[in-house]
C-alpha cells in the first residue's frame, strides 16, 4: 500500500442554498479543493451522497458531477452509507490511491436537502433507519436518539444540562467558522428552553437540515511532497458496521460500530486515543457526541457528559472536539458531513483554521456515522 496525503480541501458556505442546485453546490466545493491543491485534472472521482434521489430526484451522480466538473471521462463512483456516506467516500478514495489504482482522486460529499418540505426530508432521512423494524412503527431519528439519551441518563446519570453543553460548545466553535450554517452562540438556558422535539431532546439538541458540499484531493505522499502546502497524511482508515435497528443492539448507550472502526484505525496508525490533538465527531444530536467520545476511548464509558461539563472537549481543552462547530452549528448536509470533517482537520493541521485554530495540532481524527450507528468510519490524519 502507498502512503496517502491530502493536497487540497474545499468547502463553501453551508445553509439553505435555495438559489443553487446540487450540481452547483458540489462543483463550487470541488473547484475550491482543486484550486487549493493547484491542479485542474484528476484521475478519479468519488462522491458521497446519501439520498439525492429522494431529495432532488437525481441519481447517477458520479457521471453528472464528473461532467459538470469538466473531468469526463474519468472514472467516478457515488458511495452511500447513510449519514456516513462522506466518510465512506474518503475511505474509498484512500483505498484507490493507496492501492496504486489512481494517483489523484477527488473525494467529494454533497447533499441538497432543502428542496423538499420537512415531512419529505424526515422521510428521506428515515431511510437510514430500519424501515421494517423502526420506521413502520412511527419512529424517526430524533426519537431514536432520544431513546439513547434517556437510556444514557438513566444508566450513567448524564444530565439534561450536560447534553445542552454539547450544543453550547459546538455553537461557540461554529461562531468562529464563517462557513457554518448557524454561526451563533447559544446558552445552556436557551437550549433547555427551546422547542421540545422528542423528550429529552429539544430543537437545539438536533443538527439542522442543510445544503452543502465539501471536497478533498488525495494523492500519494511522494507526489504530495512536490506541492507547496504542508503534507497532511491520511495515516488510518477504519470502518465498521452494526445492526441498523437500535432494538438489535446489546446496549443502546454504546456505539459498537464506532468502537470497532476506531480500534482498527488506532491499530493502523499505531496511535492511541491520547496521541490525538483534535477530533471531529458526528454530533447529529447532542447525545451522539457523548456516546461517540466514549466509543472512541477518549473517556471511560458513561463519562462523556461529565467530560463536556469539565471543558475537556472545548477549544482550549485537553482534546478539542468539533472545533468546526460540528454538525450542530456548521450544519449537516448528510453526504457532505464526513468529507467536511476531514476538511476541518486538514485546515487545523496546516494551521489555517483562523480564530478557532487548535494550538500545535499535529494529529487529528474524524468519526462519521450512519443512522443511529449502523455504520461508522474513522480516519486519522498526521501533518509531516
Amino acid at each position, binding site marked *: 500500500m502507498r502512503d496517502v496525503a491530502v493536497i487540497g480541501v474545499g468547502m463553501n458556505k453551508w445553509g*439553505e442554498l*435555495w*438559489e443553487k442546485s446540487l450540481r452547483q453546490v458540489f462543483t463550487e466545493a470541488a473547484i475550491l479543493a482543486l484550486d487549493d491543491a493547484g491542479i485542474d485534472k484528476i484521475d478519479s472521482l468519488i462522491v458521497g451522497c446519501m439520498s439525492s434521489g429522494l431529495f432532488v430526484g437525481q441519481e447517477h451522480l458520479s457521471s453528472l458531477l464528473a461532467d459538470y466538473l469538466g473531468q469526463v471521462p474519468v472514472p467516478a463512483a457515488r458511495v452511500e452509507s447513510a449519514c456516513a456516506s462522506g466518510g465512506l467516500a474518503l475511505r474509498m478514495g484512500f483505498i484507490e490511491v493507496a492501492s496504486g489504482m489512481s494517483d489523484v482522486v477527488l473525494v467529494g460529499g454533497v447533499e441538497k436537502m*432543502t428542496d423538499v*418540505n*420537512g415531512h419529505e426530508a424526515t422521510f428521506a432521512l428515515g431511510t437510514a433507519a430500519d424501515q421494517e423494524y423502526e420506521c413502520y412503527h412511527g419512529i424517526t431519528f430524533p426519537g431514536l436518539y432520544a431513546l439513547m439519551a434517556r437510556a444514557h441518563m438513566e444508566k450513567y446519570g448524564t444530565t439534561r444540562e450536560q447534553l445542552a453543553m454539547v450544543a453550547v460548545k459546538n455553537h461557540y466553535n461554529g461562531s468562529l467558522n464563517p462557513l457554518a450554517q448557524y454561526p451563533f452562540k447559544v446558552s445552556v438556558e436557551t437550549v433547555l428552553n427551546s*422547542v*421540545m422535539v422528542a423528550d429529552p431532546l429539544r430543537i437545539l439538541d438536533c443538527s439542522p437540515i442543510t445544503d452543502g458540499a465539501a471536497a478533498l484531493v488525495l494523492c500519494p505522499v511522494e507526489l504530495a511532497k512536490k506541492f507547496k502546502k504542508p503534507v497532511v497524511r491520511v495515516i488510518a482508515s477504519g470502518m465498521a458496521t452494526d445492526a441498523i435497528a437500535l432494538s438489535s443492539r446489546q446496549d443502546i448507550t454504546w456505539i459498537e460500530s464506532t468502537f470497532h472502526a476506531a480500534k482498527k484505525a488506532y491499530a493502523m496508525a499505531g496511535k492511541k486515543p491520547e496521541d490525538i490533538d483534535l477530533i471531529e465527531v458526528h454530533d447529529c444530536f447532542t447525545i451522539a457526541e457523548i456516546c461517540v467520545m466514549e466509543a472512541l476511548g477518549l473517556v471511560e464509558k458513561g463519562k462523556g457528559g461529565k467530560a463536556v461539563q469539565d471543558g475537556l472537549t472545548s477549544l482550549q481543552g485537553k482534546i478539542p472536539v468539533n472545533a468546526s462547530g460540528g454538525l450542530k452549528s456548521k450544519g449537516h448536509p448528510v453526504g457532505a458531513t464526513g468529507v467536511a470533517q476531514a476538511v476541518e482537520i486538514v485546515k487545523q493541521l496546516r494551521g489555517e483554521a483562523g480564530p478557532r485554530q487548535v494550538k500545535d495540532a499535529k494529529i487529528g481524527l474524524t468519526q462519521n456515522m450512519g443512522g443511529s450507528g449502523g455504520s461508522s468510519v474513522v480516519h486519522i490524519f498526521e501533518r509531516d
Partner: protein
Amino acid sequence: MEGIIGYGACIPRNRIKVEEIAKVWGADAPSYRKGLLVEEKSVPSPDQDTITMSVEASKLALKRAGIDPKEIGAVYIGSESHPYAVKPSGTVLAEAIGATPDVHTADFEFACKAGTEGMFVALSLVKAGQVKYGLAVGADTSQGAPGDALEYTAAAGAAAYIFGREKIVAEALETYSYTTDTPDFWRREYQYYPQHGGRFTGEPAYFKHITGAAKGIMEKSGLKPADFQYVIFHQPNGKFPFRVGDMLGFAKKQIEPGWLVNKLGNTYSGSSPLGLTATLDIAKPGDLILIVSYGSGAGSDAFVLKVTERIDEVRDLAPKTRELLDKNKNYLEYGAYAKFRHKIRKAE
C-alpha cells in the same frame, strides 16, 4: 392630486384561540404563541364569505366618501378565496352597492397581495382620468390545512378603499411594485388547501420582496424611514412585520398602530389593507404612511400616502377597525370552527 377618499373595514365577530386549535392537534400552544406572536384569529360565520365581507367594508367606505355609487367607474376585489372558481365576485359587490351597470369590474388573485393589486389599478385608472371613482377591496376567508402551521393564523376580513381626485383623505404620493417568480405558496385547481415551502416563505420570499418594494419606493420618493409616521407591512404572523421593519430601519412604534395580527390572524388579501384602515383611524393631517403588501408567488405593492385634513371629517362616519377587532367577540370551540370553515364534509 389623487388618493383615498373613503375607507371601510369588515372583521367577522367569531374568534378562535391558538390554545383551542393546539389542543385538537396535541401541539404546544405556548410555542405557537411565542413563535407566531398570535393569540387568536377571526373566523367567518357560515353566511360570511369574501363577497359579503367586501360588501360590508365597501358600504362603510361609501359612508366615509359620501359619494354617489353610480359614479364609481371601477370595482375590484382582490382575494384568494373568491367563492366561485368561475363567476366574478366583483359583479355581486357592484350590484349590491348600486354601481352597476356603468362600471368596469374584475377579480384579482395574487395570494396575499390581491387587495393592494386592486388598489394599485383603481388608483391608476383615477390618475389616468379613465374613471371618476375607483373601488378596490382586499378580502379573504383564508384557508389553512387542518393541523398545518397556517391553521393558527389563516383568518377572515376585508378592507375597502375608494379612490378619487376630490375630497381626498390620504393623497397617494408614490406607488411601486416589486415582483419576481418565487413559488413559496400555492394552491392548484381542485386542491382544497394551499401548500407552502416552509422556511422558504421567509428570506427569499417575504423579506426579499418587502425590503425590495420598500427600498424601491423610498428611493423613488426620496423619503427615508424616519419621514413616516406609520408603516404597514403584510402580517402573515406577528414576528415578520417587526423583523422586516428592523431590517429597513423602522421603529416598533411606527408599526404597532397598524399591527393587528396578534388578535386578528392573517387575513391574506385583507391583511395590510386592514392595517391601513386601523392606521387611518388614528392618523393626523400631514402624516406620511407607507404600506407594503406581500403576495406569495411573489410580489409586493408599496404606496406612500399623505393624510389630509379631511381625515378628521370622515373618521367617525363608520366603525373603526380596532373597535371591530376588540368588541362584540364570539369565541368558538374547534367543532363549531371546523363546521363554519367547511372542514367537515357532509353527505351530498
